[in-house]
């Protein structure tokens, strides 16, 4: 059941938590990905935050493109094709998966694991992608920009840190907005998964007994939430949502209710994550390597 909050001039919000609601809202023509900033101060602030994810030419990053956008479909297909060749990709990122396996096993690596994850993700796009502390800081800055409060966000913008971070991420991604999204935003989910795997490995003899699939099931989470907007009012999964409602899809909550629906990747939806196959493969490979070394 959707939770709705309306404070005129401030916010009009609907929180969707059940898997059925989320799938229905995601498929509904009433709910859009692009945020207009209309409807209240909170909407305006969130839309302004997401509006920065553009190239200097104004090209919107793929994850923020609308359903009917022909380029989104094209990007998605191309990327899906590239990322579906998991065998080649796993070979390409073998040093990174090895290093992460070592981290899971022993808790130590030559470089911080989050930098290794960023490099691993970047190398899915470019064989010679090189992450650094600076590039990870940039990704962290962007993550803080998205999820941080208004004061933090203001400071990031006013200090120029936000622009520097965006410029660096886009430069490293060579203008490839899919790569930029993966190495700046999506990678944090993998960092969290690796960290959970590390916790798993520390406890009892999990590393010995748990299969890669079980480890992934325990470690991989969906993003906590994503936001959408209704342009006009209309019915969404049996509820009428008013125009300019900020629709918050609580993905992790839905995944916990029903782990099998693939909500973490919007599996089978129009916006299915192109990395839906490669991310579990990477995590499985890391766990396997960690397990093998232990043996």
């Amino acid at each position, binding site marked *: 059941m959707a939770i709705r909050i309306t404070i005129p001039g401030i916010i009009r919000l609907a929180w969707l938590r059940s898997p059925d609601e989320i799938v229905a809202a995601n498929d509904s023509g009433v709910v*859009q990905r692009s945020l207009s900033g209309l409807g209240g101060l909170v909407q305006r602030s969130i839309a302004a935050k997401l509006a920065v994810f553009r190239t200097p030419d104004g*090209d*919107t990053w793929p994850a923020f493109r*609308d*359903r009917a956008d022909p380029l989104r479909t094209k990007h998605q297909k191309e990327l899906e094709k590239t990322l579906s060749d998991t065998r080649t990709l796993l070979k390409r990122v073998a040093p990174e998966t090895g290093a992460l396996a070592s981290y899971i096993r022993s808790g130590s690596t030559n470089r911080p694991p989050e930098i290794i994850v960023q490099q691993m993700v970047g190398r899915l796009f470019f064989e010679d992608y090189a992450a650094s502390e600076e590039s990870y800081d940039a990704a962290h800055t962007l993550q803080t920009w998205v999820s941080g409060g208004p004061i933090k966000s203001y400071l990031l913008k006013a200090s120029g840190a936000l622009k520097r971070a965006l410029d660096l991420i886009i430069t490293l991604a060579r203008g490839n907005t899919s790569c930029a999204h993966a190495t700046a935003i999506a990678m944090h989910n993998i960092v969290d998964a690796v960290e959970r795997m590390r916790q798993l490995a520390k406890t009892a003899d999990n590393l010995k007994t748990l299969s890669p699939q079980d480890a992934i099931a325990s470690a991989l989470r969906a993003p906590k939430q994503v936001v959408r907007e209704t*342009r006009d009012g209309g019915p969404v999964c049996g509820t009428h949502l008013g*125009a300019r409602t900020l629709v918050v899809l609580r993905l992790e909550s839905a995944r916990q209710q029903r782990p099998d629906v693939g909500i973490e990747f919007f599996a089978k939806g129009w916006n299915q994550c192109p990395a839906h196959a490669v991310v579990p493969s990477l995590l499985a490979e890391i766990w396997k390597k960690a397990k093998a070394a232990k043996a």
Partner: protein
Amino acid sequence: MSRENDGFEFHPTRLQRFLDVAYRFINVFVRWDQLPTMLAAFNIAAFRDRLRAHNLHHTGYGAKSPGPWKPGYERWRSPDGSYNCPGHPRMGMAGTRFARNIPLAEGVPETGDALLEPSPRLISRELLARHEFIPAPTLNLLAAAWIQFEIHNWFSHGRPEAGNEFKVPLPRGDDWPEKATFDGCMHIQRTAHDETKREPWLGATPTFINFNSHWWDAGQLYGHNHHTQMKIRSERDGKIRFDGEMLPEDPDMEGVDFTGFNDNWWIGLALLHNLFAREHNSICDALKSAYPKWNDEELFQHARLINGALIAKIHTVEWTPGILAHPALQFGMPAQWWGVHQRWLHLLLGEDNEVSRGIVGSATDQHSAPYAMTEEFTAVYRMHPLLPDTVSIRPFEKGASETLDFINVQGKKTRALMKKHGFLNVLYSLGTQNPGALRIRNYPNFLRQFQKDRVRDKTKPAPPLMDMAAIDIMRDRERGVPRYNRFRELIGKKRVTSFEEITSIPGIAEKLREIYKDVDRVDLLVGLMSEDLPEGFGFSDTAFRAFILMASRRLKSDRFFTDDFRPEIYTELGLDWIRNNAMKSVLLRHFPRLGPALEGVNNCFSPWNVVT
């Protein structure tokens, strides 16, 4: 090229910022149209600045580079509108894209079933179809012809495409002819596809090409390319070619005059095209007397420039206040052209300000985007209810009048009718009868089952039978023009929350509820035609918001109305011609016998005196 409107930005002055804030506050308590005249006029100016800052959105030019620069383009308009803005030669050129008045992400059409919901045919039958002719008593039928004449200057989406038509299911009992029904559906052709390369930042917003030049350059008379322009010219003394008293017949279209743009021809268009072609030739005569050494090209191009500006002036200071008879507009529209000659205002705003001196002759400014006509402006210009279903031809002197179905005063029948009755009688007839009002349930029924004439080339397919009312609905939907409520919001008005807030016309709110169920689903055209009007207005306040922005932009962005509106370009004679003439003087120059019909008539688009 950046998505951020190709580098253009709006820079409001301190006074504009102040007025914006002040009027936001005032409008919480009082609507603009209920303010005293001067305050209301400044309220409109505040709306315009707000719209200039937020409602101009570039969609890319689409077209490749224009043709080469030719000597003379610095002094007169190129045939296709290129080089009007020397730094951006494609701006406004024929063959470039329509822009938008809404953020691009808001201009995404609905998909699947939603696109056809509710059925445009149902809307045509239940909401738009004329039950009884509702006249616009303050206007004459020339006002209807005039706006069509002007629209043919500004925009054309080209011929719709056959194949992949929208299939609109017909309800049981629909009277749509069997011969035009396919598997129980009415077909509606799609707008011509934009074949040019899409920029990645366009997202899901569809783009369409304007086949006409976007500028206010009288392209309906002179054509939108060099080839057409040369065909209409006599190549003697700069004049337009005539065949006796009339423009020659189009070799491709029986009964239709050959001119710059002659789609959807009828006697109203024939009158205005012939009138302003004659005016062009009169300007040529005057120019030749003043500048005897000028060749055909100099004479033609200068006459074109002067005639085009005269048409723009008539539209601004006569047609618009005619249809928007609110005191603020009666004051504001002439001020837009001439300025406000009040000393205090000049001291307050400066001599070069567009309010104090008028837009014409002020500095060129594109504001926040490169100039182009927009899809939303096209949408608010859907004014078919202005047309009646019948036209009376009244002899100016004596004889019986004849009432003809509109279908018999258009297309291939036009020239024969003009020859039979003569220009004077047809002008007088249109000047003395009312057009339809732009209201719901006043859409001409002949257009709801209309077939255009076939061209002479019989290898080309016959045009399909059309329900223009249903097509008007589908055009807005397919082009991603928002529905009425969202359009209101995006153009700076509050959304309505009930059907009753839109209209007080008896029975309409209930009908809207029955058909649309949800107030957010009401189509733009239906909302505009249903909306309660401000005092004196001939169309809705919502449509007016788009006009506030775009009507002045047509002047302000065009260097020939701003930086280059000067004697070195137009000649002193040209500026005098524009200053000293109006619709009445043009009519009387070419049809002096109309004198008694126009005596005491202040606006030639209001009904003339009936003298017989």
